[in-house]
């Protein structure tokens, strides 16, 4: 009974709303006036692609150097219909995600220990700084030497590269605890454990997530660079192989796939961030 009543009321409300709302065309016009970028942004992309296509077809730039977008599209079709392609995406994804999970988990643990044990922090800090300033990609060849041509060397590279932003952001986050909030916990006679879980960790979470997002992006870079050096499978291998074969349109197609992979991974992190750090201010005015 009650559900039908609600249903009727809902319909009535919808009708009332449609009566009071301006017509669709007018609303769309208003939206576009307020946010012209909704149209202009995709339009600019189309313009660039058209110019590129024209320039390439007119042979202003040799197609071998810069293939036209239509050729890159052909490349994408080739990739997605090839039976060996899904495995390449899978391999790179596994390397990236495994490396990121291990690297960031270790980073969070070490960050927590650093904040709680000042001596440990003092001892380990010089190493952290030394590794931080070193461009980690130079380690890729040596990881291949140590861990072989397979997935392991790529995972280790992803671990090494994603570790630092996470450890630093964890430490910074844990140390950003409000002084009065610490005093409050002390006045309530909270244990160290309670202070950590009820205050320090939630305080640190937004910063930890900022580190995780950077770390994940870097993990993908790490995996690809290690694949460039030597590998049997993966998207990095496709890029180097196609380049050698001068199939530049396939290189571009692979770059697009890599970018989409990065975007998807980042999107997942962004989603988790919003779900877990639900209290963060999201005051976007625009």
């Amino acid at each position, binding site marked *: 009974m009650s559900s039908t009543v609600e249903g009727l009321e809902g319909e009535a409300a919808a009708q009332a709303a449609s009566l009071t709302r301006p017509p669709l065309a007018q609303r769309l016009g208003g939206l576009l006036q307020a946010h012209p970028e909704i149209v202009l942004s995709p339009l600019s992309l189309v313009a660039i692609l058209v110019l590129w296509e024209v320039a390439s077809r007119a042979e202003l730039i040799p197609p071998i150097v810069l293939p036209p977008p239509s050729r890159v599209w052909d490349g994408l079709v080739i990739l997605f219909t090839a039976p060996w392609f899904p495995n390449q995406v899978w391999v790179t994804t596994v390397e990236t995600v495994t490396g990121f999970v291990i690297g960031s988990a270790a980073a969070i643990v070490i960050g927590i220990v650093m904040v709680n044990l000042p001596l440990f922090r003092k001892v380990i800090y010089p190493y952290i700084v030394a590794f931080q300033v070193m461009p980690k990609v130079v380690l890729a060849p040596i990881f291949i030497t140590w861990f072989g041509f397979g997935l392991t060397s790529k995972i280790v590279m992803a671990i090494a590269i994603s570790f630092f932003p996470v450890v630093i952001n964890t430490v910074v986050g844990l140390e950003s605890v409000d002084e*009065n909030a610490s005093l409050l916990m002390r006045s*309530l006679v909270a244990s160290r454990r309670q202070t950590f879980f009820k205050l320090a960790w*939630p305080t640190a979470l937004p910063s930890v997530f900022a580190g995780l997002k950077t770390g994940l992006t870097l993990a993908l870079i790490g995996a690809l660079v290690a694949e460039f050096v030597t590998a049997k499978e993966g998207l990095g291998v496709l890029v180097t192989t196609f380049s050698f074969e001068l199939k530049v349109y396939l290189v571009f197609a692979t770059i697009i796939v890599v970018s989409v992979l990065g975007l998807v991974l980042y999107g997942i992190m962004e989603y988790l961030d919003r779900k877990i750090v639900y209290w963060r201010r999201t005051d976007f005015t625009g």
Partner: protein
Amino acid sequence: MVELQTDQRLSGAGAATGAIQVSGVDKVFRRGQGAVPVEALRDVSLDVAPGQFVSFVGPSGCGKSTLLKLIGGLIEPTAGRITVGGREVAGPRRDVGIMFQTPVLFAWRTVLENVLLPIEICGLDRRACLEKARGILRLVGLEDRERAYPRELSGGMQQRAALSRVLVVDPPIILMDEPFGALDEFTREKMNLELLRIWGERRQTIVFVTHSIVEAVFLSDRVVVMGTRPGRVLSVLDVSLPRPRTIEMMKSPEFAATAFEIREHLGVAR
């Protein structure tokens, strides 16, 4: 030995009544080797009777917040002795509730969850205390905002929530460090009246730090006037205005006289 035991039993009773004794307390901050030590408090002595409302008033740097932190056991005195409820203060205690100048609400907790924080920390059953927490939110007029997050509240509402968090464990002693200092004049007056109403019902011992002479006179039974360099007690004045206090009393000659006397002791009136 026997005497000591009697003493402890007595102090148990004292904890419930909530008397505060400060005798000969000095506090010197040393910022590290080589740095000049800062004398925050020199030879401070005062007694607060159970159920009394006492304010510390004085300019910045007179050590009023330091004295409050000493009573709350958040810092240790350099010399002297402080007892609360007959027991010497050796650290923070659960019979002493502290309210800070900022509300210090946790952004990831709703108002109700923030109020329940001390319950969780004491290891009490959250569900058993839920009705009590709701009752206190009703007392401060936040009953319809229990699911709101702190950032959705105004400054006044945030301090009400902070007050509820102190009240939820029924401490016999409440220390308040300029709790309404960041609020606008109107909200502040309203909060003062509400605080008096709640105190009138429960009669905790309240130590209230403020730099507002008017606020100190309006709220207190006694006003401790403090001076700077070094931080010290200049005088202790009794406020003879009747209870319950009303805003109208602010224009009474007695109110003006007490406020003026405080100004004289502070050396502000010339």
